[in-house]
């Protein structure tokens, strides 16, 4: 791969296993009669876009690989296995098999350390990829014909404070960007997280999870918050978005707190291009949006430092 690499696109790519369950791909064992179509159709757009962009790698930041000491990167050439969701095992028992971009993993590791972050390489070939990585990767590229790189979510926003967590994610975003540039990759980024995250404490009907007559957002207040941040994204009002996210997290328990969105925005240089919202719907009451920032037509700016 010659030349300077670049981030061609970034997605908010939520990972409820319900989306895979609703689709009935061959990799997933449980069968459904559908469900959550609006979000799945939204992902169809992303799949088409990724096919057009032909990236070298999809990098996923996942909240379901929560690490205590530093930021971890998957660093084995191939990971394969059966992933059974610990929360929704009746929906998600997925046979995954994916190539990992280990050269990029090494580069992200080195650049993260250069930022002063603690970083680790996950080199155990028996490691079971978390379902956040798998669902997001599947929904973006069900053929798994593009290598991925999975980044863990360090516990810092929960253990210390949101501010500490954001600072770390800005550093990790800058590190990721430099690693992409140095390795010459055309990369797609994926922040694997929901928006508002309050959810039902019981499944309305465990025997028919795809009963869409039971699906709704947790509250109107949460819905309004989700719409508020989506409007800011759609209008490219990045500074306002960044300033409102802490309150959004506090009010809605947004999974954004785990860091992926901050990481992705920093890596992309806090783009002011309007984002495209492909779809929004609830999954077991959480607010989920599939959102795209297309950077393929632009040179990446140098905005990361401006906010860090």
């Amino acid at each position, binding site marked *: 791969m010659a030349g300077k690499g670049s981030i061609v696109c970034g997605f908010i790519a939520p990972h409820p296993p319900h989306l895979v369950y609703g689709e009935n791909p061959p990799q997933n064992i449980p069968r459904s009669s559908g469900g959550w179509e609006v979000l799945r159709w939204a992902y169809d757009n992303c799949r088409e876009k990724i096919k057009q962009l032909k990236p070298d790698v999809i990098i996923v930041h996942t909240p379901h690989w929560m690490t205590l000491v530093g930021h971890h990167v998957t660093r084995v050439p191939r990971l394969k296995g059966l992933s059974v969701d610990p929360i929704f095992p009746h929906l998600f028992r997925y046979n995954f098999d994916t190539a990992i971009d280990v050269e990029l993993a090494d580069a992200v590791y080195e650049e993260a350390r250069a930022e002063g972050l603690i970083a680790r390489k*996950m080199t155990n070939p028996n490691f079971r990829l978390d379902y956040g990585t798998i669902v997001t990767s599947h929904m973006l590229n069900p053929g798994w014909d593009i290598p991925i790189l999975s980044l863990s979510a360090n516990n810092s926003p929960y253990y210390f404070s949101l501010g500490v967590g954001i600072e770390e994610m800005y550093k990790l975003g800058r590190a990721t960007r430099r690693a992409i540039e140095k390795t010459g990759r055309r990369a797609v980024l994926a922040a694997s997280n929901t928006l508002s995250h309050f959810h039902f*404490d019981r499944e309305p009907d465990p025997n028919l999870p795809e009963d869409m007559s039971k699906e709704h957002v947790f509250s109107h207040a949460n819905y309004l918050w989700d719409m508020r941040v989506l409007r800011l994204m759609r209008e490219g009002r990045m500074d306002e978005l960044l300033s409102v996210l802490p309150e959004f997290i506090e009010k809605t328990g947004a999974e954004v707190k785990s860091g992926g969105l901050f990481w992705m925005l920093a890596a992309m240089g806090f783009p002011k291009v309007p984002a495209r919202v492909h779809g929004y719907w609830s999954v077991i009451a959480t607010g989920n949006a599939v959102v795209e920032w297309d950077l393929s037509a632009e040179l990446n700016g140098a905005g990361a430092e401006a906010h860090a």
Partner: protein
Amino acid sequence: MPEGQIVKGYIMPGMPHVMLPTESASRRELRDACRVAGANVREARPDVLVIFSTQWVSVLGHLVQARANPTGLHVDENWYDLGNLPYDFRTDLELARRTIDLGTAAGFQVRPVDYEGFPVDTGTLVALNFLNPKNEIPVVCVSCNIYSGSDEELKLGQAAADAVRALGRRAVVVASTGLSGHYFTREITDDEDRIVNEQDDVENRKLLDLMAAGKVMDAMDLVPEYAAKTGADMQFKSYYWLMGALGSGRVNSKIVGKVLGYGSIWGSGAAVVEFTA
């Protein structure tokens, strides 16, 4: 059928450092204590181990392992570099189902999981490694709900004990849990390991002293304050479950604790405590 009984209870550490090849004075003490616990369990000849693990986190109510023979290879998501945790154990299905039924009858959401490849957590496997190394004793595994409160855990522990009695089992009940939850957020060498701050150490010892003095109810009363001060592992809610299972608060209940070992694992608190009821 004679009425069953809980013959012993344990607090066991759930971090893999005590069973995988890492070394420090603290971990050595904990490992030795885990081995003593294992010997005592085998001497008690239980029919079943009932394990509540804080590392088996559930969100929608509680889950109970209902697969007859869970097998697989677990890799810890944080400590994957320490090695693999293979497992192959038997579930006491009758007791698992009765535990679910009684927990449900108590008004809680308790569901079975019976799936090939369902992830068994590190804490359960660490406990099994010491208490049931040859997997001769059937097991019932119970999850830790992230949102549950003290009352729910106490009653679910009682439900587990009621199920044991109803089915005539001799059971050992185990809470796989850490103590103080603050830890080193940086890389450390094994020799550097210690409780990460003095207050955590003081609070851990205060709690353990109450248990050792047989003041298990006082310890239970202290848990909310203790958990807030120390960032305790899952708010130390496993202790409510354990006390519920051991019969704390019931008429004539007398529970005595014995601290077999105490120390740090990556800065967090850990202990092996043996209870007899």
